[in-house]
C-alpha cells in the first residue's frame, strides 16, 4: 500500500499542531518520523487513523483520496496503529483484546464469541512473526514489552499493510528494542509499510529507510540514514546546533542522608514489587535508579515518600527512623517531585500561588495556625514565579492553564524553595522539551552542589547518564548493581535492566562513544 498525506493541517484551540504536511510512505518501507515533544507527530498519526479530522488536506491510498470518519474506516483501509499509550483493556485476555472490534462469532444468531477461532489465528500470526504471547493471559499480567507485541498482533489480525508505531521504544529496554526491530524487519519483508515514531535518533538511523523530521507542526525535511548524521538530524529537529550536555563537577559525597534497608513493598494487587531492597544516598551526590517500568521503581518512591506503607524494612533519613507518612517526611527535609505532575504534583484547579504553598500552607508565615495569610502567600508566590521563570500573567491563574513545562516549574519551584536535605524526583522531565529539560537538570545539579542528597528515578537512559553520579539498576524489586556512569555503557546498563547479568562488568570502552543528545524526552 502506498500512502500519501497531502497538505494536512490540524488546528487545536490556540495551537496549529500540523501545518500543511506532505509525506508519502511507499509499500514495504520503514519510514521514521522524528520531532521534538509537541512537534505534532502523534496528532498527524491520529489524523491518519481517523481519530481526528484534518482541517485541510487529504489522505490518499494507492492514489485514491480517502476519508476516515473514525478508526473503523482506517482499519478497514488496512491501516493499523500501535498507540503511544497502549490501547489494551487490562482485564481482558490477549485473545479478547485482539479480537475486539473484529470478533469471530458463531452460533445461530451469529452473536456468540468464537474464542477458539480467534485464538487459532493469533497463534498463527505470532508464529509467523516471532511474536510470542500466551493468548489466554490477562493483559494486566503482562510486562510492557509483551503488551506491545499484543498491540502489533492486533494490527496484523486486522490485515494491516500499513503499521504506525508511535514511540514504541520509549518503554523498552535496549534488548527489547532489538527484538522489536527484528519483528519490524520481518513485517517489512512481508510487504508491510511501517511508520515509526521515535525520539531516539540512533534508532531511526538503524532501522529506517527514510526519515522525516517535524518541527512545530511542519515538515522540516525528509532524508535517509545514509545521507544524515546524528548531528544533522538533531539540528533539523531543534532548529539550531545542539550540544547539550549538563555541565557538572564531580560529586563530593558526604554523610548518608537516605538509608534504605531491606525494604519490601507491595503494589495495589498485593504483588511484592520491591523485594528486600537496600540503597544509600549521600549528601552531595545524585543517585539515579535505572530500570524498566514495572520493576518496582514507582512503589519504591511511593514507599520512601510515605505514599505507600511498606510491608517490611527500615528507611532512615538523616540517620533518623522517620515515620513513613508524607507530612513527617516533608518535615524531615525531603522534597519530592512526583512522577505525574497533574495527578500527584499539583491541584490543577488551584491557583499558582496556592499550589506553591501546597505543602507549607500550614506553617508560618503562610498561616497562623487557623487562618491563611494571603498576603504572605502571594508575596512568596510572586518571588518564586520570578525566580523559576514560570511564564504566566498572574499568580492567581489556575495551574491547569499552564503548559506542561510551566506546570513542572511550579512544582520544582515549590519543592526547591525550602531548605532540603534530600530530593526525590521521579521522571522529572517526562514529556518536557529540550529547554525545559536543560533547565530542570541544571536546577537538580545545583541542589546537589548545595549539599542535598538526590535520588532520581528515570526510564530515560540519557537522563540517567546525564545526571547521575552513581547509577543503581533496579530489576524485579532489587538493586542488582550500582554503576559508575563514567565507565558504564548504555549497553551494559540495558542488559542489567533486562535482568541479564554480564559476566563481570568489564571496563567500559571509551566514553566518547556515547552521544548525550538531550532532546530525547517523553
Amino acid at each position, binding site marked *: 500500500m502506498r500512502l500519501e498525506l497531502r497538505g494536512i493541517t490540524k488546528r487545536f484551540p490556540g495551537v496549529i499542531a500540523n501545518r500543511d504536511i506532505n509525506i508519502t510512505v511507499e509499500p514495504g518501507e520503514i519510514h521514521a518520523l522524528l520531532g521534538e515533544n509537541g512537534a505534532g507527530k502523534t496528532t498527524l498519526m491520529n489524523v491518519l487513523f481517523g481519530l481526528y479530522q484534518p482541517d485541510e488536506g487529504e489522505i490518499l491510498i494507492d492514489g485514491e483520496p480517502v476519508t476516515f470518519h473514525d478508526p473503523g474506516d482506517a482499519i478497514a483501509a488496512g491501516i493499523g496503529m500501535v498507540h503511544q499509550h497502549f490501547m489494551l*483493556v487490562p482485564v481482558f485476555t490477549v485473545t479478547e483484546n485482539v479480537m475486539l472490534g473484529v470478533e469471530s462469532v458463531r452460533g445461530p444468531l451469529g452473536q456468540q464469541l468464537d474464542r477458539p477461532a480467534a485464538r487459532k489465528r493469533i497463534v498463527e500470526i505470532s508464529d509467523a512473526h516471532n511474536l510470542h504471547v500466551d493468548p489466554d493471559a490477562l493483559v494486566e499480567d503482562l510486562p510492557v514489552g509483551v503488551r506491545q507485541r499484543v498491540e502489533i498482533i492486533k494490527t496484523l489480525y486486522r490485515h494491516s499493510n500499513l503499521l504506525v508505531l508511535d514511540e514504541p521504544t520509549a518503554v523498552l529496554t535496549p534488548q527489547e528494542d532489538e527484538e522489536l526491530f527484528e519483528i519490524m524487519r520481518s513485517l517489512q519483508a512481508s510487504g508491510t509499510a511501517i511508520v515509526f515514531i521515535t525520539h531516539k535518533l540512533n534508532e531511526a538511523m538503524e532501522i529506517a529507510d527514510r526519515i522525516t523530521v517535524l518541527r512545530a507542526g511542519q515538515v522540516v525535511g525528509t532524508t535517509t540514514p545514509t545521507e544524515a548524521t546524528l548531528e544533522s538530524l538533531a539540528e533539523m529537529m531543534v532548529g539550531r546546533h545542539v550540544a547539550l550536555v549538563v555541565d557538572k563537577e564531580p560529586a563530593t559525597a558526604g554523610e548518608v542522608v537516605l538509608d534504605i534497608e531491606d525494604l519490601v513493598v507491595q503494589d495495589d494487587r498485593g504483588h511484592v514489587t520491591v523485594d528486600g531492597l537496600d540503597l544509600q544516598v549521600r549528601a552531595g551526590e545524585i543517585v539515579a535508579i535505572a530500570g524498566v517500568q*514495572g520493576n518496582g521503581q514507582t512503589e519504591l518512591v511511593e514507599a520512601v515518600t510515605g505514599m505507600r506503607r511498606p510491608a517490611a524494612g527500615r528507611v532512615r533519613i538523616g540517620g533518623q527512623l522517620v515515620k513513613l507518612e508524607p507530612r513527617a517526611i516533608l518535615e524531615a527535609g525531603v522534597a519530592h517531585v512526583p512522577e505525574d505532575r497533574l495527578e500527584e504534583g499539583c491541584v490543577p484547579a488551584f491557583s499558582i500561588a496556592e499550589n506553591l504553598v501546597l505543602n507549607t500552607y500550614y506553617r508560618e508565615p503562610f498561616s497562623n495556625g487557623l487562618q491563611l495569610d494571603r498576603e504572605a502567600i502571594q508575596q512568596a508566590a510572586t518571588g518564586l514565579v520570578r525566580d523559576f521563570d514560570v511564564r504566566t500573567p498572574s499568580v492567581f491563574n489556575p495551574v491547569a492553564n499552564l503548559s506542561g513545562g510551566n506546570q513542572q516549574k511550579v512544582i520544582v519551584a515549590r519543592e526547591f524553595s525550602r531548605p532540603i536535605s534530600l530530593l526525590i524526583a521521579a521522571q522529572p522531565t517526562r514529556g518536557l522539551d529540550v529547554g525545559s529539560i536543560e533547565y530542570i537538570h541544571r536546577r537538580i545539579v545545583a541542589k546537589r552542589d548545595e549539599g542535598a542528597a538526590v535520588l532520581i528515578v528515570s526510564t530515560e537512559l540519557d537522563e540517567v547518564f546525564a545526571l547521575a553520579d552513581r547509577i543503581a539498576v533496579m530489576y524485579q524489586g532489587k538493586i542488582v548493581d550500582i554503576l559508575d556512569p563514567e565507565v558504564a555503557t548504555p549497553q551494559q546498563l540495558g542488559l542489567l535492566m*533486562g535482568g541479564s547479568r554480564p559476566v563481570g562488568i568489564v571496563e567500559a570502552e571509551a566514553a566518547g562513544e556515547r552521544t548525550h543528545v538531550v532532546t530525547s524526552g517523553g
Partner: protein
Amino acid sequence: MTAAVKAAPAVIVDRKAIRRQRFLGVAYLLMAAVVAYFLTGDLQGSQTSTFLLKPAGNQGGLDVPSIVVPSLIVVYLAAAICAALGAIQLVRGFGARWAIVLGVVVVAFVFAFLTWAAAGKSMSLIGILQLTVQKSLPITFGALSGVLCERAGVVNIAIEGMLLSGAFTGAVVGSATGSNLIGLVAAALVGAALAGVLAVLAIRYRMNQIVAGTVINIFASGLTSFVASRVLQSHRELNEPTKFSSIPIPVLSDIPILGPMFFSGNLFYYLLFALIGLIHYGLFYTRWGLRVRAVGEHPRAADTVGINVIFTRYRNVILGGVVAGIGGAYFTLGSTGSFVHDMTGGRGFIGLAAMIFGGWTPIGGFLASLIFGFADSLQARLSILNVSVPSEFLLMVPYLVTIIVVAGLVGRVRMPAADGTPYDKG
C-alpha cells in the same frame, strides 16, 4: 525482559488481612455472646421450634415435612459454632477462606435467632424463603439496570427514580388501557425515556453522573407525586390495573422448597430470570458484551478499534432504563395493584448496593439481592412473631445490611475502570 512478580513470600505480613482477622474474630465472639446470653434467657429446655416447609394455603406442591428442633440446644449450638470459629479466627485466621467462614457464622447467627423467635411456636420457613425471593425481585431489576449502565461506564444512581416512574406508568397505563401488558411496555418505555435524559446529561453534557442521577430521582419523585395528587386522586379508575397473576410452572413448581420460591410467581419472576440469564450470557459470551465491557473498561481502546463508544453508552443506559422501568412496574402490576407516591422506598439504591456487592455481574447482583430480600423478609416475620424489638429497629434492618455490605466490600470489588468517567473523543 521482566516477568510479573507474583506470590508473596511468607514473611510478608498483610496488615489489612491482620486487621480484618482481628476484627472478624472479635465480631464472631460478640455474636456468640449475644446468642448465648440474650437468646437463651426466656427459653425453656423442653421448648421446640418448628419450621414449616410446606407452603401455607392453597398453594400446590409436594408435602414437605417440617423441621422440629429443640430450641435451647440449637441456640447453644449456634453460639458454640460462632465462638469456636471466632477463637480460631483470632488465633490463626482462615486465610483466603475468611469469606466462607463469615457466611457460616452469619447463617448460624440467623438460624439461632429464628429458633429463638419460633420457640414454642411454629414458623413458616418456606414463607420466609418465598418472601425473600419476592422482596429481592425489584432489587434485582435495579441491580441489572445498574449492571447494564455501569458495564458501559455510566453510573446510574437514577434507578430509584426509574423504578418509581415505572411503577406509576405501569399503574396508570395499565388501568387506562385495561391491559397490564401495555402497562408493562409503557413502564419500560418511560424507564427508557428517563434513562435517555440521564444519558444525554451524562454523555453529551458531561454532567457529573451522580448529580444527573440525583436530579432524575428528585424529578421522578416530584412529578409522580404531582400527577398522583392532581389526577389520580380524582380518577381512581386510573389507578386500578389488573395485576399479573401467578403462573406456577408445571413440575418445577412442585420441587420442594425451590418450587415455591422460584417457580410459582408471576410474569415478573420469569422475566427476571430470563433477563439475568440473557444479560449474563450477553455480557460474557457475545460480541455485544465484549464491546460493552471494553467501553466500560477502556473507552479509548474501544474507540481505536472502531467501536462507537458514545452509541454503546447511550444504548446501554437506555436498556438499563428499560429494565428499571420493568422492575418499577413490578411494584404496581406485579405486586400491589395500585400506585402510591414514593412507594419504592429506596429499593433502587439497595439495587445499586446489590450490584456492587455482586461485583457488577447479573448473577452476583441477584445473589446479593437475595440477601437484602432475606433481611427484608426476616424483619417482617420477626415483627409478626412479636419479638421484643421495636418495629422501628426491625425496619432499619435492610438499610443497615446495605451499609454493612457496602462498607465491607466496596474496597474489595473491582469496578469497571471507566465507570463514571465521561468519554472525551479528544
